[in-house]
């Protein structure tokens, strides 16, 4: 108890405390001679040490203390008693009291073991032991109608242990105290309890806090520390000047009901039976109880990760779907393009066929017109006058013109339809051949043809190239025919990237503002009577060049002649190889 008193009193007195503890051992040493001697001894011990307050512990008045010490050494000293009832022992005293209660312990035992049939109340043979035994008998008799009450007493320690080791099933052991056995052997009561709990084959209960943690299941314990605290507070009031008589005697409830969880497990008692008014101690937390939050945390983490994984999977699925949708869309698009292209191709072919058929069907009647106008002229000349013959000549000329126009149109449309076949062309021989042919055709003129080609070859569509050169030459012949010294020069030159071919004449030339227009189909700069032509020739050249990635253009000054160029990329060689 010392620490409780020391703490409360010292705190209350700001450390000005001189605390002494003495044992008068009234229960174990009740002999009057000893008590008298002890009184005298203490009287001499505290002769020069005035005592301000006495607190008695476990010596409830009236007893030897009240008769001996209260009349002697502590006659004028205020006393705080821990007593049994509300009665004030003397005017210079006050105190706390409590009800002695064994019943609650047995009630607790019966709550935990409702099936119990017998209760064995164990106590020793000393005066103190018997005292407790009597109290037990007095308090517990009322339980006799619920359970069989047996008193294990007046036995040697070994007999006691034998008894508790072989109790019938459904038993309760209520340990009071054993300080001495029937053979006169003395024991420390907690040591006795340890022996009993070690061998007992039934759960053991006890009634005092000192027995806690000695193998008992539990009990409604008298916790003396509660009384100590209460009495210390009362003592403090006295020391601060209050008269003990003015301090009401208080009732205290020093009991705590406690259950040892380990013993519940040992005896296989359901924890749920523990009443609300009892506290469970030494509970070993289950794995779940101990690691609940860590487990929850880990599970939460796993759950979170699962969610993440789930989200990622969903995302991946969505992406897959999106990609599939995109693929489908692409496929559809390609399909649509293919369909459109096919439709366009069909349309294009249809148009070609149309142009081709028109051109051919236009030619056939011409043959009739020309043929019969000729026959008329030849076979019936005598029946015609000069004017009639002139008309027939005009018909013939017009037919020829139209025939040429149709031929050129056919050529133009054929260029579009003909398969593009690039091949290696030696420029020198090709140009020479074409110029020679033209020379033969243009016999009636005095044109001076000059070929100025320094070797070289080019990969080109040969048909397109020949056609282009012929048209350029036709053009040059036509427009230089009226010059005084007509001269046509055909040249070729290789550069790094291109092959350049030109046809230069010293004819009428043209205004540069028309340099591009002359390459458009049906575009003419001169009257047909002066320079006959269909207006298709240069358009054919441009188209042929475009097909091989080249260029066609012209430079001129009116009256200064003109130069017509062809440019064919050498890149074509690499592209084709």
């Amino acid at each position, binding site marked *: 108890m010392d620490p409780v008193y020391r703490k409360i009193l010292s705190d209350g007195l700001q450390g000005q405390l001189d605390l002494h503890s003495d044992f008068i051992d009234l229960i174990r040493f009740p002999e009057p001679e000893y008590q008298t001697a002890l009184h005298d001894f203490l009287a001499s011990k505290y002769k020069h040490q005035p005592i301000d307050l006495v607190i008695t512990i476990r010596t409830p008045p009236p007893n030897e203390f009240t008769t001996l010490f209260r009349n002697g050494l502590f006659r004028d000293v205020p006393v705080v008693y821990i007593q049994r009832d509300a009665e004030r022992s003397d005017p210079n005293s006050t105190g706390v009291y409590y009800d002695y209660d064994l019943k609650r312990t047995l009630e607790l035992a019966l709550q935990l073991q409702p099936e119990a049939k017998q209760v064995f109340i164990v106590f020793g043979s000393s005066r103190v032991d018997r005292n407790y035994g009597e109290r037990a008998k007095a308090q517990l008799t009322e339980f006799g109608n619920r359970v069989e009450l047996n008193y294990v007493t007046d036995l040697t320690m070994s007999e006691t242990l034998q008894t508790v080791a072989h109790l019938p099933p459904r038993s309760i052991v209520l340990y009071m105290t054993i300080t001495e056995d029937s053979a006169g052997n003395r024991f420390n009561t907690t040591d006795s309890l340890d022996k009993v709990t070690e061998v007992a084959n039934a759960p053991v209960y006890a009634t005092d806090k000192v027995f806690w943690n000695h193998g008992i299941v539990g009990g409604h314990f008298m916790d003396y520390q509660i009384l100590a605290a209460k009495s210390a507070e009362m003592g403090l009031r006295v020391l601060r000047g209050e008269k003990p008589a003015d301090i009401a005697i208080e009732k205290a409830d020093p009991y705590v009901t406690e259950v040892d969880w380990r013993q519940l497990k040992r005896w296989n008692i359901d924890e749920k039976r523990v009443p609300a008014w009892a506290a469970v101690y030494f509970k070993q937390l289950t794995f779940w109880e101990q690691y609940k939050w860590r487990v929850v945390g880990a599970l939460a983490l796993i759950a979170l990760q699962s969610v993440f994984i789930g989200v990622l999977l969903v995302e991946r699925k969505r992406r897959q779907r999106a990609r599939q949708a995109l693929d489908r869309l692409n496929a559809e698009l390609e399909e649509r393009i293919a369909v459109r292209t096919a439709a366009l191709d069909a349309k294009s072919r249809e148009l070609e066929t149309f142009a*081709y058929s028109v051109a*051919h069907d236009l*030619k*056939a*009647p*011409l*043959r*009739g017109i*020309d*043929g*019969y*106008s*000729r*026959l008329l002229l030849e076979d019936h000349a005598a029946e015609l006058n000069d004017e009639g013959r002139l008309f027939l000549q005009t018909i013939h000329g017009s*037919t*020829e013109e139209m*025939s040429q126009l149709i031929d050129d149109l*056919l050529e133009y449309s*054929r260029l579009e339809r*003909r398969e593009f076949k690039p091949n290696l062309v030696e420029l020198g021989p090709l140009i020479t051949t074409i110029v020679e042919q033209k020379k033969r055709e243009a016999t009636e003129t005095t044109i001076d043809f000059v070929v100025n080609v320094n070797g070289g070859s080019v990969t080109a569509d040969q048909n397109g190239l020949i056609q282009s050169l012929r048209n350029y030459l036709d053009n040059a012949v036509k427009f230089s025919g009226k010059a005084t010294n007509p001269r046509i020069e055909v040249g070729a030159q290789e550069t790094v990237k291109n092959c350049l071919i030109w046809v230069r004449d010293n004819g009428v030339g043209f205004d540069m503002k028309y340099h591009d227009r002359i390459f458009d189909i049906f575009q003419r700069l001169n009257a047909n009577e002066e320079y006959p032509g269909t207006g298709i020739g240069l358009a054919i050249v441009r188209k042929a060049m475009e097909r091989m990635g080249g260029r066609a253009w012209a430079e001129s000054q009116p009256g200064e002649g003109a130069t017509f160029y062809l440019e064919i990329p050498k890149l074509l060689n690499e592209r084709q190889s």
Partner: protein
Amino acid sequence: MNDNLSPILIVEDRLADLDLTKRAFARRHLLNPIQEARDGEEALAYIKRWEAGERPPIFILLDLGLPKISGLEVLRQLKSNPASAAIPVIVLTTSGEDKDVHEAYRLGCNSYIVKPVEFNKFMEVASQIEIYWGALNIAPL
């Protein structure tokens, strides 16, 4: 006309062209009898007659743009039938298209000539045909 001579078959749908061709041959004083077919069907009908033993022509002038059955199809059937495969076929047509030329030769035509528009040239062509296929060339009769 001399019925002892083998005929010449002209397959031509245009009356003017047919007439001009005949006139051209007449100017050359050609004596062979002229047989005519005005469309593909009529042309192919001749094959049956040759199979039946009628005298085949020394050559056939074949236009390509024919009603009912096209000239190229007529050519194909002529050249795939034993009764007519050996007869020289001269395609005489307005078309100078590459694909027509190629296809005609592939099917076995013996000559391919583009009909000139100009009368004099046309006369020249007819005359050349008569000289080459009628006089110089020996047809497998």
